[in-house]
């Protein structure tokens, strides 16, 4: 949340920059040499407070939403409409006994949830959450984000391995294999955005999408390559965060709870927090890359503060995560791997070529037609070829008849 000179003092600008101005006001009580460091500390405190708060709200909304989809009430006992349920859950997990298995590797078992949460929190440092609201405006911000999300894989492995439990280890292996497989298309879709925006800096990528044609924005999702990238990104992001339908690492009917089977009490709560924070941060990066970051969806809506748009978009994306969890059944392991390597990856590589074509065909309608035809044609062709090999017929049951 770097300070920038605020030229006009109209009400929308002040509301838009409210948090930045508040931070500058707080910092101004300190001697000048302390101010940059104090500003960073304040931003970190804000991130560490806001996102776990959102996490608490999201758990209630998720349980209530899933309840609605499954024809039941969901939590409705603690507080009005059950909204204090996360407080009760938090107190419960703080006071629960912390059980560590006798054979577990104590140090690694202890470090795994910590490294997970720390690396997930690091990703928020480069997310532009509003105009002038980014903690670290790094030149290679996108790379920083993905290097941090890659570092979480190791903590998942540490959790699974150190528990000395077959289910934990299997869950960890599944999780790591899945995260590595889907990380490749995830990174390649962001490469398409970098090719067009010409920068790895997230505020610059937002700035590149900030124009409007009439009232409609120049978001990358409204281009053929951007739409294709966004769909692949959404699939890969769901797999990266181990959310349904990609929640095989926690498939309770097969491997109890996956890599956090042997965690209880507050360490389990940290894993839970880490999963939801990863959802927030990957949604934030998706919003930044494809949905214009903090810019308004229609040009006349720019009077509404920028941070409102960022958090609205993130919460809409969280809603889609919950919606999919209530809708789709879990994939099978071979389906998961085949889908990643035989469909998503070739399609992403093709999309990179289409993006380059888009970049060099120049302005005009021709590039819209050409890239749309290539993408749709290849999508249909690959789908047909894949279906042709499968020999779908009437379902046969081995034991159930």
């Amino acid at each position, binding site marked *: 949340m770097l300070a920038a000179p605020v030229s006009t003092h109209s009400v929308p600008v002040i509301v838009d920059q409210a948090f930045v101005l508040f931070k500058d006001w707080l910092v101004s009580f300190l001697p000048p040499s302390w101010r940059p460091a104090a500003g960073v500390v304040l931003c970190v405190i804000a991130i560490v407070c806001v996102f776990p708060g959102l996490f608490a709200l999201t758990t209630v909304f998720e349980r209530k939403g899933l309840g609605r989809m499954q024809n039941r009430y969901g939590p409705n006992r603690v507080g009005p409409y059950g909204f204090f349920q996360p407080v009760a859950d938090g107190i419960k997990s703080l006071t629960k006994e912390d059980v560590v298995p006798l054979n577990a*590797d104590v140090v*690694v078992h202890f470090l795994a949830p910590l490294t997970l949460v720390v690396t997930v929190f690091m990703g928020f440092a480069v997310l532009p959450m509003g105009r002038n609201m980014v903690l670290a405006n*790094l*030149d*290679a911000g996108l*790379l*920083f984000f*993905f*290097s*941090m999300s*890659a*570092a979480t*894989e*190791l903590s998942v*492995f*540490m959790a699974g*391995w150190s528990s000395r439990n077959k289910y934990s*280890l299997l869950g960890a*292996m599944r999780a*790591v294999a899945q995260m*590595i497989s889907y*990380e490749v298309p995830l990174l390649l879709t962001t490469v398409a955005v970098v090719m067009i925006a*010409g*920068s*790895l800096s997230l505020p610059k990528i937002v700035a590149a999408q900030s124009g409007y044609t009439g009232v409609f924005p120049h978001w990358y999702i409204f281009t053929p390559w951007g739409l294709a990238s966004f769909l692949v990104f959404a699939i890969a992001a769901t797999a990266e965060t181990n959310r349904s339908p990609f929640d095989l690492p926690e498939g309770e009917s097969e491997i109890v709870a996956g890599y956090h089977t042997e965690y209880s009490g507050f360490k389990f709560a940290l894993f839970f927090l880490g999963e939801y924070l990863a959802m927030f941060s990957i949604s934030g990066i998706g919003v930044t890359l494809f949905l214009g970051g903090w810019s308004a969806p229609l040009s006349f809506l720019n009077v509404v503060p920028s941070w409102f748009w960022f958090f609205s978009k993130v919460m809409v994306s969280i809603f889609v995560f919950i919606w999919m969890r209530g809708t789709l059944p879990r994939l099978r392991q071979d389906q998961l791997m085949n889908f990643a390597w035989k469909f998503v990856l070739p399609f992403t590589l093709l999309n990179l070529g289409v993006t380059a074509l888009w970049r060099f065909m120049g302005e005009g309608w021709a590039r819209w037609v050409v890239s749309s035809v290539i993408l749709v044609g290849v999508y249909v062709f690959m789908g047909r070829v894949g279906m042709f090999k499968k020999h779908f017929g009437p379902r046969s049951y081995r034991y159930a008849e």
Partner: protein
Amino acid sequence: MSPIFYVLAVLTVAGGLAAVLLKNTVHCALALTVAFAGLALLFLNLDAQFVGFAQILIYIGAVAILVVFAILLTRGTETPQAGVFSRSWFVGLVIAAGVFSVLGWAVLQSARVLPQPSAIPSVTVHDIGVALLGRYVLPLEIVALLLTSATIGAVIVAMHEKGRPQ
């Protein structure tokens, strides 16, 4: 040489030593990750953002994972009873010292031979991209070819042989 450099250097060297000296192979791999992270932080300390983040992404995100997978899928994680030193540790030590001295000599020579830049250059990601696809495009293509052939080789090794039941 700021105090941060010394902290990071101690972290990196301690990680490397632990990777050699610990008994449990998975602990060694995790200690190696600490050394990788220390190296990445050293790069960042030198303002080399791109290299530092790429180090984390590739070495911690991919190489360390590959190492632990290799350990788990092959020999298991049993700890050796006879200690961690192999019988040829002295030869290994001599070879390592030789390689280190040659590298150190080359680095020290280059500092004397090459002209010293007057100011610290500010290298952006854009500059790195231009250099990679401009002046250094041939090495880049050769590396790409090498990696592609390695990938094809890995797929061929992993493929089911024809005529044998799967």
